[in-house]
């Protein structure tokens, strides 16, 4: 009998203590045994023991992807397109996040690459080289928007800087230094210098590298990079994603033997969409024809 009467009390203490108590209850002196920390008696004893010093974690936690829903590229793109409907296509981008299994400290992966299909093509490049020469023609063909020598010096001195990057040919470097552009271009980080590789012999190659190039680096165990414009077809995206992931893998292999980094998860997202974990397939049986997925 005694055990039966004590049961409801036990059960009540097991339940959420706040759910049944009216707020006024606390005004009366509290006699019932209710632990503020919501720890049971055993837990309390454990807590009052002097704490063992925890060893600091050296690796980022990577949760198992066993229960994660993963998508093929086409399916992820279909959802992305739905989330991005009606957004200006120039402002929305696909981006890729690569989660690494890695230690917290140590060298970070950092590199730049040229994607097969450039994401940001709006960059304006100025090339300082003798106008009407073979070099200038090459630079224009490579995508430079401004080419010349004295004309550019005059424009810059007037304060009109209509470019985002500046490259100088070796032969024109002396002329440029004499023109005293450093005071204007220097603070903006546009002044070409041999140290940064912006004073080169191969102007066309540098311009090409700048136009389609994108930079990436590891931050908190994740590498992020924009990999596509919204209007890209799944095939174009596939090539870009492959190029990016392949390049990252190469970087990981190049690290010293003692450091082991591996790719844990690859997530595709876009500006206004949630992230979709990719399973590595291009398309699933239910995905729509690839041609449809590029329609804005």
């Amino acid at each position, binding site marked *: 009998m005694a055990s039966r009467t004590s049961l409801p009390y036990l059960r009540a203490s097991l339940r*959420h*203590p*706040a*759910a049944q*108590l009216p*707020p006024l209850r*606390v*005004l009366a002196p509290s006699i019932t045994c209710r632990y*503020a920390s919501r720890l049971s008696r055993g837990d309390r004893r454990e807590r009052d023991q002097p704490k063992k010093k925890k060893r600091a974690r050296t690796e980022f936690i990577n*949760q*198992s*992807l066993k*229960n*994660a*829903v993963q998508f093929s590229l086409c399916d992820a793109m*279909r*959802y992305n*397109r*739905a*989330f991005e*409907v*009606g*957004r*200006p*296509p120039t402002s929305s981008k696909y981006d890729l996040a690569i989660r690494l299994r890695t230690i917290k400290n140590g060298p970070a992966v950092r590199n730049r690459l040229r994607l097969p299909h450039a994401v940001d093509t709006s960059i304006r490049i100025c090339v300082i080289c003798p106008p009407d020469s073979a070099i200038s023609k090459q630079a224009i063909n490579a995508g430079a928007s401004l080419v010349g020598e004295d004309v550019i010096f005059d424009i810059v001195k007037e304060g009109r800087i209509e470019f985002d990057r500046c490259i100088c040919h070796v032969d024109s470097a002396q002329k440029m230094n004499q023109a005293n552009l450093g005071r204007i271009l220097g603070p903006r980080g546009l002044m070409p210098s041999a140290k940064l590789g912006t004073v080169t012999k191969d102007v066309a190659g540098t311009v090409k590298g700048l136009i389609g190039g994108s930079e990436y680096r590891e931050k908190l165990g994740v590498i992020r990079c924009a990999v596509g*414009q*919204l*209007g*890209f*077809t799944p*095939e*174009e995206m596939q090539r870009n994603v492959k190029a990016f992931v392949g390049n990252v893998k190469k970087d990981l292999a190049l690290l010293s033997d003692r450091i082991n980094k591996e790719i844990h998860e690859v997530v595709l997202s876009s500006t206004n969409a*949630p*992230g*979709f974990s990719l399973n590595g397939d291009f398309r699933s049986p239910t995905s*729509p*024809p690839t*041609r*449809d*997925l*590029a*329609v*804005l």
Partner: protein
Amino acid sequence: MNVERRMKKLKAKLLDIRIGPGAAILSSDVKKIHLEFARKINDGHFGARKVWRNYLPRLKYHNPAISMTINRTDDQEGPATLTIHFAPHSKSTSPTASPAPTSSTDPSTPPPDYNPSRRVETIDMKHKQDSEILSRLLELTKATPYEASPDELVELREVDDNKMRSDRDKKAQMRLNQIRKQEEALLAQAKGAGKLEGASL
């Protein structure tokens, strides 16, 4: 972030895109839907924006081949229209062709496979509710509503359950915090009173 929690959130979002008002498959001769309305909701542009935010993602998900574009103007007194472009289904376009990205902000660009023998229908969205506009759109495009599969219905129930549970827990936690704060306030008051008494003695 916890994978379980992340997936729960993602599933709810995707389910919301797949089923709900606006989840319908439009007839195959619809080529493009273009919305034109003002940036702000004053002067009857509220319904248009709601259509875009609530229904257009669902329509886009179920009809990925239809071009859906939006142009938002700064002219608040201007019209709010929804234009549907029809064109007979043409088989001539090769399935491998990669269409160039059309501008989403320019109403004049034709859809990739431009067909001159097309028909255009317009819905005036000004001063109209979003549901009203949607039913008119579905009627004009001869849409067949998307039927949720049994799996999706089960998922939907799970999402609802989760929401209910989280609401309940939220309330319980609020109550708990309230009690804790009251206790703390009482304790502080008692301490303050004790100090005062000690000082007077």
